[in-house]
C-alpha cells in the first residue's frame, strides 16, 4: 500500500464515522430523507462559497454551504406547517429548487471555476491526496483529511457532551421540553452538524454517497441492537468497514470509489436484513413457524384437557377432531412428547401433570394477558415473547 492509498482509506473512514453519528439520530427521528435534501440543497451555498474563496476546503465555504443546509430544513418545516402538503412533499419541493439554482450557477460560470456537477454528485476521493495542506512549507497531509478530521472532532465532542439531551429529545420531545431541554435547539443543532458533515464529506464522496453513509450504517445497526450506545458503535464500525472494503473493491474493479463504497453498504444491509438474529428476515420466518406449531400444540393440549372420553383422545382420531393435516399432527405430537406434556398409552393420549399445568397457565395468560406468571415460559416458547 502506498501513502496515497492509506490516505484515501483514512479519509473515507473518517467521513464514514462523521456521517454515522448524526445519521444514527436521523434514522431514529425518522428523518432519513432530510439528509438527502441537505446533501443536494447545499450546492448553491457551495458554489457561492467557491466563487468567493476559490477553495473547496475553505472554512467560509463550509459554513456558507452548511447554512444552506439548515435553511433547507427550515423551509421544509415551514411548508409542512402550512398543513397543505405532507413532509415528504415539502422535501421534494425544496431541495430540487435549491439544487437547480446551484446547477445553473455552475453552468453560467463553468469557464471560470473548477467545479463540475459530476464531482459534486459522486465526489473525487481518488484525487483527494493531491490537494495537500502546506503549513510554512511543510506538507502535513491532504486538505480534506484535515477538514473531515476537524469536523469529526467537533461532532464527537458534541455527541459526548449532549448525549443525554440528544437521547431524551429524540425519544420523547414532550418530556424533554417539560424538563427544560429545548428540543428545537437540539433539533437545529443536529441539523447544523448534519449539514456541516455533509459539506465536509462532499468533496471526498459526493452528494449521493453522503446520504448512503449517513443512513445505511445506522439502519444496519438498528436491526442488530436495542441499545443506543451500541447502535452508534455498530453504525461507526459498519461505516468504516464499508469505506475500506469499498475502496479495495474499487481498486479491484478499477471503478469509482464512491460507487464501490455505496455498493458495499447496500450488500452489508442486505446481509444483515437477512441474517440479523431477532429482526432479520430468516429469524422472523423461523419464529412465525415456531409460533404456528406452538399454537397448534396449545390447541391440542386444550382439546385433551376438555375431553375425558377415550374416543376423543385416540391418536388416529386426533386428526379429524382437530382438523389437522397429518404432518402437523405428527410434529405437534412429538413436541408434546418431548416436553413430557402427554403420555401415549395404547394409542390413547392423556395429559401429564406438567402438560395440564402448562395448559392452564397458558390459557390464563391468553385470557388475562397478565405477564408475570409466564416469565419462565418465555425462554422455551416463542408464543409468549410479546
Amino acid at each position, binding site marked *: 500500500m502506498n501513502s496515497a492509498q492509506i490516505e484515501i482509506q483514512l479519509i473515507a473512514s473518517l467521513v464514514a464515522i462523521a456521517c454515522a453519528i448524526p445519521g444514527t439520530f436521523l434514522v*431514529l427521528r425518522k428523518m432519513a430523507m432530510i439528509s438527502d435534501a441537505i446533501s443536494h440543497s447545499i450546492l448553491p451555498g457551495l458554489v457561492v462559497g467557491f466563487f468567493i474563496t476559490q477553495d473547496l476546503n475553505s472554512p467560509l465555504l463550509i459554513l456558507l454551504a452548511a447554512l444552506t443546509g439548515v435553511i433547507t430544513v427550515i423551509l421544509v418545516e415551514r411548508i409542512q406547517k402550512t398543513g397543505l402538503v405532507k413532509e415528504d412533499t415539502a422535501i421534494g419541493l425544496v431541495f430540487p429548487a435549491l439544487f437547480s439554482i446551484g446547477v445553473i450557477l455552475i453552468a453560467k460560470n463553468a469557464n471560470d471555476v473548477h467545479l463540475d456537477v459530476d464531482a459534486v454528485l459522486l465526489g473525487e476521493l481518488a484525487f483527494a491526496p493531491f490537494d495537500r495542506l502546506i503549513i510554512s512549507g511543510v506538507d502535513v497531509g491532504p486538505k480534506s483529511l484535515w477538514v473531515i478530521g476537524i469536523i469529526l472532532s467537533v461532532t464527537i465532542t458534541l455527541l459526548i*457532551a449532549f448525549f443525554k439531551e440528544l*437521547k431524551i429529545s429524540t425519544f*420523547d420531545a414532550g418530556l424533554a*421540553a417539560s*424538563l427544560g431541554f429545548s428540543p428545537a435547539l437540539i433539533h437545529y443543532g443536529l441539523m447544523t452538524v448534519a449539514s456541516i458533515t455533509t459539506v465536509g464529506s462532499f468533496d471526498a464522496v459526493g452528494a449521493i454517497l453522503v446520504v448512503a453513509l449517513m443512513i445505511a450504517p445506522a439502519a444496519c445497526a438498528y436491526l442488530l441492537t436495542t441499545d443506543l450506545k451500541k447502535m452508534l458503535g455498530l453504525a461507526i464500525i459498519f461505516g468504516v468497514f464499508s469505506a475500506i472494503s469499498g475502496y479495495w473493491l474499487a481498486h479491484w474493479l478499477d471503478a469509482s470509489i464512491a460507487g464501490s463504497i455505496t455498493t458495499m453498504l447496500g450488500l452489508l444491509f442486505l446481509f444483515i436484513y437477512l441474517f440479523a438474529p431477532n429482526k432479520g428476515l430468516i429469524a422472523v420466518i423461523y419464529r412465525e413457524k415456531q409460533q404456528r406449531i406452538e399454537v397448534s400444540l396449545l390447541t391440542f393440549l386444550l382439546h385433551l384437557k376438555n375431553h375425558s372420553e377415550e374416543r376423543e383422545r385416540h391418536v388416529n382420531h386426533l386428526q379429524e377432531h382437530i382438523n389437522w393435516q397429518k404432518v402437523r399432527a405428527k410434529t405437534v405430537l412429538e413436541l408434546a412428547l418431548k416436553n413430557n406434556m402427554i403420555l401415549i398409552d395404547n394409542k390413547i393420549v392423556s395429559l401429564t401433570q406438567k402438560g395440564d399445568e402448562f395448559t392452564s397457565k397458558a390459557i390464563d395468560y391468553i385470557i*388475562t394477558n397478565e*405477564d408475570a406468571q409466564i416469565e419462565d415460559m418465555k425462554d422455551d416458547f416463542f408464543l409468549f415473547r410479546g
Partner: protein
Amino acid sequence: MNRIKIMKEPSEKKEIPASAGRIAVQVDDLTVAYNYKPVLWDIDLEIPEGVLMAIVGPNGAGKSTLIKSILGILKPIAGSVSIYGKPYDQQRKLVAYVPQKGSVDWDFPTTALDVVMMGTYGSLGWIKRPGQKEKKAALEALEKVGMLPFKSRQISQLSGGQQQRIFLARALVQDASIYFMDEPFQGVDATTEIAIINILKELRKSGKTVIVVHHDLQTVPEYFDWVTFLNVKKIATGPVKDIFNDDNLTKTYGINYKVSIQE
C-alpha cells in the same frame, strides 16, 4: 340519553380539605391556537395543592393541550400560567409529566431502566450525566411500580400496561410536587389500572398534587376528588362530590347525561 353507572365510594374515605391549602397551579386567561384556530379559549383555572384531579371532556376538547401549555411545551397566544406563584420556567423541578403513551416510539433502542433514568435528567441539567445516585432512584421507582424484574428489557418487548408503568416510574423518579398525566389508563389492563390509581392516591396522601387527563367517566368519582370539565372553554372545576353532575356533563358533552349513583 347516556347513562353512566357509578359505584358509590366506601364511606371510610376521608375528604382532603383541599381548598384550605395553597394554590398549586394557577391558569389565567389562557388561549391556545393551532394555525390561528383556538383550541383552548380563555381558560381560568385554580388547582389547589393536594388534590387528585381529573380533566374530562370530549375528544378535541383541548385536554392534552391544556397540560402541554401549562408545561411550556406549547406556546399560548394569550394568558399566563404559574406554579406556586411563579412562572413554570422557574419551577420545573416541582413538576413531573407523563405524556400519552402513543406520543413516543417504543421501538427506540433503549431499556426500561434507561427510560426511567430520563426522569432524573431534569434535576441534572445540561451536560451532566446520570450516575449511581440517579440509577438507584430509578431502580426504586421501578420497584414501586412492580417493574423491577423487567429493568433490562427493551421497551418494545413490554406490554402496553408495562409501558405505562415505566412512564409512571419515570415521573416518580422526578420526585416532584405536581404530577401531570396524559391518559395514563389508556390501553392498560385492569390490574395495571388499579396499580396506577393506587400509586396516584398514595401521591395525594403524601401531599402531592396530581392532574390526570381522563376518559372513563364511570371511574371519576371512584378515583378522583377533584374534577375539571373542559370543552375548549372551561365548563366547571371543583370537588367531584359538588360538581360531578348531569348538568355539567351535559354542558361538556352536549348530550343528556344521567348520573345514577348505585348504593
